[in-house]
């Protein structure tokens, strides 16, 4: 017996649960396999006794050859440290798993996503509806045997493009010339759309009481009004939609509706080769393309077992922190937009952002979609000119500009009155709802992946985790200002210490060889913890590719933040969460 298997046998969790829980002993897999009937008890013990209070990621994997669907959970301690990974396997024909929402409310949207895309039914989930697609959509697209209308082959590169190269337009081969496919015998006549009754349930309930059919007394009814914001609304930061029930001006319920920008990142990612996914990650959170690259590169490098050279690590940190500055500047500018200072603060911050975008363009060739990271390094080296430019920006220009923002905005009466005490999320709630990034830290939880579970070379830099105690809109704004300052500190140290040398391990490759196994790579993205769950079966394409998107999961606590607030505050609260729809909907 090897050393490793010996420690596995003595694992305290396995010892405790005896035959209910076993180690996942597949090659290069980690964590515990839990039986569905023991899941609730296992999760409760994990949370309440072992201190894994933060459920980071929930996702499913379709193991078609084994006729199994697997749900994978990643839980962490907010005090720091590695993950507790646990998995539940259910037969593909009848995938039923108990919902973890009663224990970890942050599982809510993620379980709905797993239901939507993989068809895993979570019993006990309070509101198991489709989340990214619409009710009535045919099938569960991330199942391995589900095929999209434009299906060509299971894996890229497609034969019509390489090596044969008989290029054709896929539209020309389809019945309608469009990206659609219908079940056999489908006729649109007589077909009734599913509708959105569940969104307007509150309205219907009061209607019923008025007509004398419902439970409750008519004189107790408030003036309930349902307001629909979005998906085309100037302040929903994209195509996001909220259905808000109001009593007077006070919010009694809020249902986020998303998926209007669901562009099938994961399905396309599983057809792509590993390297092809890199530019797609740029388009997740399109303001922070560099740090999106970072997380994906980490996940795959973990599987491949390679390390980037020293210089590449420094350049990565510089780029990721510059991205954080860009993102927070943008978020602050547009939060002020939402508070009524239309576009003037945004113009100031966009000006500064352009300086950093020039650096990105110089190193990667593109302003926004940088596609700069590679497995084991970077696409190009950082030129001396660009380095000089970065030094100028972080040492001379930005510190003064951040102070300027601080002077104009932090003490501003409107910012304070509209921010203080609005949209409060307490520390316990923030952890429960799996909030991440500035939203979590503004609630007084000093959890930052860069410190809690350091990746790359973050342990070498001297910086503080920005924390604020109140958990309101104003504190989220302050955390962002603090984080810009901390990021400047990190970049200042990095440009001072950056060594020479290679920027890539080995030769640049068009095709990487990734051994079979699973890995979860996570980084502290500007919006929160961004995780990539990658499963490889040894072929050139990932078997499963899942993104734990902070913008998506941060919205789980949105209703909690809004209930009891005024309708005008919804926009400010949404602005303070700082979502990007490319990442929310993927």
């Amino acid at each position, binding site marked *: 017996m090897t050393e490793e298997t010996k420690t596995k046998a003595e694992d305290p969790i396995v010892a405790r649960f005896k035959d209910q829980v076993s180690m996942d002993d597949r090659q290069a897999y980690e964590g515990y396999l839990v039986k569905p009937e023991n899941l609730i008890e296992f999760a409760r013990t994990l949370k309440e006794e072992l201190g894994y209070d933060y459920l980071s990621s929930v996702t499913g994997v379709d193991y078609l050859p084994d006729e199994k669907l697997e749900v994978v959970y990643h839980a962490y301690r907010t005090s720091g440290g590695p993950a507790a990974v646990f998995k539940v396997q259910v037969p593909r024909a009848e995938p039923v798993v108990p919902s973890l929402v009663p224990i970890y409310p942050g599982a809510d949207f993620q379980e709905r996503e797993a239901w939507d895309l993989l068809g895993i039914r979570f019993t006990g989930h309070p509101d198991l509806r489709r989340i990214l697609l619409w009710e009535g959509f045919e099938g569960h697209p991330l199942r391995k045997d589900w095929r999209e209308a434009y*299906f060509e082959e299971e894996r890229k590169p497609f034969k019509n493009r390489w090596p044969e190269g008989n290029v054709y337009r896929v539209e020309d081969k389809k019945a309608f010339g469009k990206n659609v496919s219908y079940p056999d015998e489908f006729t649109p006549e007589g077909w009734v759309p599913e509708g959105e009754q569940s969104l307007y349930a509150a309205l219907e309930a009061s209607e019923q009481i008025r007509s004398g059919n419902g439970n409750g007394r008519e004189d107790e009814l408030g003036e309930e009004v349902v307001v629909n914001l979005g998906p085309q*609304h100037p302040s929903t930061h*994209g195509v996001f939609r909220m259905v808000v029930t109001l009593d007077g001006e006070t919010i009694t319920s809020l249902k986020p509706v998303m998926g209007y920008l669901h562009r099938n990142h994961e399905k396309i990612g599983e057809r792509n080769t590993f390297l092809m996914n890199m530019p797609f990650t740029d388009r997740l959170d399109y303001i922070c393309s560099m740090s999106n690259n970072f997380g994906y590169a980490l996940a795959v490098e973990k599987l491949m077992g390679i390390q980037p050279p020293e210089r590449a690590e420094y350049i990565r940190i510089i780029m990721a922190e510059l991205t954080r500055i860009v993102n927070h500047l943008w978020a602050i500018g547009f939060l002020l937009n939402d508070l009524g200072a239309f576009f003037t603060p945004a113009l100031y911050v966009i000006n500064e952002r352009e300086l950093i975008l020039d650096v990105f363009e110089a190193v990667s060739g593109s302003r926004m979609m940088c596609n700069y990271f590679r497995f084991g390094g970077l696409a190009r080296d950082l030129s001396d000119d660009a380095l000089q430019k970065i030094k100028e920006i972080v040492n001379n220009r930005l510190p003064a500009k951040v102070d300027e923002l601080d002077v104009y905005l932090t003490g501003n009466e409107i910012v304070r009155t509209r921010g203080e005490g609005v949209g409060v999320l307490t520390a316990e709630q923030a952890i429960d709802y799996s909030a991440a990034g500035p939203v979590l830290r503004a609630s007084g939880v000093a959890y930052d992946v860069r410190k809690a579970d350091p990746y790359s070379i973050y342990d070498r830099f001297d910086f503080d985790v920005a924390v604020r105690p109140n958990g309101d809109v104003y504190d989220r704004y302050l955390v962002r200002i603090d984080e810009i300052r901390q990021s400047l500190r990190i970049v200042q140290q990095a440009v001072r210490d950056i060594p020479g040398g290679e920027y890539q391990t080995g030769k640049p490759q068009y095709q990487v060889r990734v051994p079979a196994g699973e890995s979860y790579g996570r980084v502290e993205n500007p919006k929160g913890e961004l995780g990539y769950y990658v499963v490889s079966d040894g072929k050139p394409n990932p078997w499963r590719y899942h993104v734990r998107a902070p913008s998506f999961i941060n919205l789980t606590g949105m209703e909690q933040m809004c209930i009891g607030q005024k309708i005008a505050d919804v926009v400010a609260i949404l602005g303070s969460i700082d979502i990007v729809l490319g990442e929310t909907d993927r």
Partner: protein
Amino acid sequence: MADEINNPEYEVPPELQGQVSVTSIDKIYNWGRRNSVWPMMFGLACCAIEMICVAASRYDFSRFGMEVMRPSPRQSDLMIVSGTVTKKMIPQIVRLYNQMPEPKYVLAMGACASGGGPFKEGYNVVSGVDKFIPVDVYVPGCPPTPQALLHGLITLQKKIDRQSIKSVRWYNDVASEPIPIPVLGPDLIDPRDFPRFAELQAKAQQAANETGVETES
């Protein structure tokens, strides 16, 4: 443009020069319209960020009379489709297009809006907004640089310059029909495809009958 207005191809008597401008109605009509194209404040995806940058001080499209972004379709002249058009979103986009008053223009910004882009094969992605609404200008890029978008907007101005008040569709005798709004079914349903459904079904029926006959014989 001012030069063209002041120097028409007509003879102006010397005593009226500098006081009277003679021009064609098309020129003055288009001159006014091209310099006040109000885009709708409508962002879909990544390209919207570059669109905001074009509105900001560095690239500043207010130089071309376009700074008034309207949040309401009723007040806008131009829809910049800035990003991936998904099946879930297309009913709203078509509805917004129908709500815009004439004259209206559509600019497809970026690869996704023009033809599906990198996400084309996705099950929830429409391969280009022109499958549903007419597009006037396509701007390539992923995302297009601000300069590219400016070029697209100037191209639209050139297109407006070439239009004639005699032939534009909004002064036709026949009012233009609104575009039927797509429906979300098992997949996206375009009401204009309804006859095609019947056709395909008849064909399938026929094929089934033929194979049925073959197996019987």
